């Protein structure tokens, strides 16, 4: 049922997340937003490389909105922290 592109995307995405999560954990990273931001980046890297065939619809739009909002919120929080010293 699943196409090879969907399989490739799933393997790439879960592989990247596992790799980055392990690395951050071993580096002693304790900020929750760091894990989430790297996850969102992993998603878009995997999505661009594997190009899974998706149907245009509310589900994919909602996913993109969720991920981009999450990433923007994390970045905004960090910028705010830097600016406020």
């Amino acid at each position: 049922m699943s196409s090879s592109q969907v399989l490739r995307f799933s393997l790439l995405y879960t592989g990247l997340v596992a790799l980055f999560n392990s690395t951050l954990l071993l580096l002693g990273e304790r900020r929750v937003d760091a894990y989430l931001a790297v996850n969102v980046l992993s998603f878009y890297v995997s999505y661009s490389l594997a190009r899974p065939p998706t149907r245009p619809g509310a589900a994919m739009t909602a996913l993109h909105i969720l991920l981009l909002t999450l990433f923007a919120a994390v970045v905004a929080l960090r910028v705010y922290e830097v600016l406020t010293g």
Partner: protein
Amino acid sequence: MNRALAVLGVNVVAVSVLAVVYGLYTQDTAILGVALSVSLVGAVLLVMSFATSEAVLGSLVEYAELASRALTTVVEDLDLLRSRLLVVADGGEVRLAIARTPDPGSLGTGIGVRYGEPYISFPAGRVLEGAAVVAGLDGRSLESALSGVLVDSLGLCSRVVTEVSGRLVRVELYGISRPLERMCGMPVNPVNVLTAVALARVTGRAVALAESGQVAGGRYAVFEVFS
């Protein structure tokens, strides 16, 4: 929908929720970070299971619509809109015909005129060749065989109900695949054609589409089965 991916997504979310609870309980933000990241993976997999489609499916659906439109145009030009869709087993070969003639076995392949009536006839080739054949017109075994072809092999619909009354077989299809459902308004559509070929294959007899229409949640077609 990709069911395997959906099950995987739900399981990943379920496990990650437990990890989030553990992270909150122990006040360990590293565990919480990993758990939230994993729950995001689960959510992504779940959404992808609904949003992805077989890469070639889109092309095939578009091609099927073009083919249906081409055939419908020919049917209209030949004034065959009030004709019947027939599936004829001619020796080892199965042929589809759109004609008004009561004797479908006498039709040659191609577009022609027989007894003053135009017809279109073309071979089914290897379409649904491996379908299980049932002996006789028993409602239950017919329903099971048609479900095997239309639901399990083709994914044309999610449920098949058959009712046999003498030489007439009423086939009801529920949960028809959305891309195919959109073509059901055409005189020659993939749902009727595939159901007719499947019925001819499983009964091993010639069939003619007598009537078709909509029922709540699906479509029905009544076929006359020739002995």
